[in-house]
């Protein structure tokens, strides 16, 4: 195997790893997030300031937050109850739905 083939192989591997993270299905997430929407807003732009905006947020951060609520690492009485009912797949779908909504959070320096 010459240098080029190994480089291409490495690139392909990296691509696979990248796409594996963005595995959520936003359409399914829209359906599964009906309960979330009552506090966080239909498009993740909550109007009540005690509930964070989810629109535009990184999906992997949202999955991390939901996982921590489910495991109890992050404590919140309301979120613990909801997260407990979610599978890893559900979390990814819900996260991908909110992540692609407009007018949400942005990176600010």
């Amino acid at each position, binding site marked *: 195997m010459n240098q080029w083939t190994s480089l291409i192989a490495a690139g392909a591997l990296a691509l696979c790893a990248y796409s594996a993270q963005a595995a959520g299905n936003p359409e399914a997430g829209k359906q599964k997030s009906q309960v979330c929407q009552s506090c966080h807003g239909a498009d993740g732009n909550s109007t009540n300031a005690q509930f964070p905006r989810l629109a535009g947020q990184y999906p992997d*951060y949202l999955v991390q937050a939901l996982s921590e609520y489910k495991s109890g690492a992050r404590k919140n009485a309301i979120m613990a109850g909801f997260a407990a009912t979610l599978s890893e797949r559900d979390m990814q779908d819900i996260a991908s739905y909110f992540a692609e909504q407009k007018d949400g959070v942005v990176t600010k320096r």
Partner: protein
Amino acid sequence: MRKCLPLSVLLILGFSHAVTAAADPTGDPKAGQEKAFFCSGCHGIPGWRNAYPNYREPKLGGQHADYLVAALKAYQSGLRSHTTMHGIAATLSDQDIADLAAYFSAPVKQK
């Protein structure tokens, strides 16, 4: 008078609670921008990742101020655990937290 005593104690407690609530500092976005220098090292870089576990650190621009204050105070008290965020939040005063929240929550132009 004796019958009134419990009532007056309640009243005083009520008033002091109102004073404490009102004492929550108002955030100054300009002061917050200067204090946000440290935050920007991670949260200001698009796609910057938390090392372990591996996930992108949350975008803060346009997030609600009340939520940001609650998050920083939870990191400060240890209710929300994250080694780096706990270390940073521990150095912040209530005024710092209010200023940072005011800065990050200010509307950001969408691309």
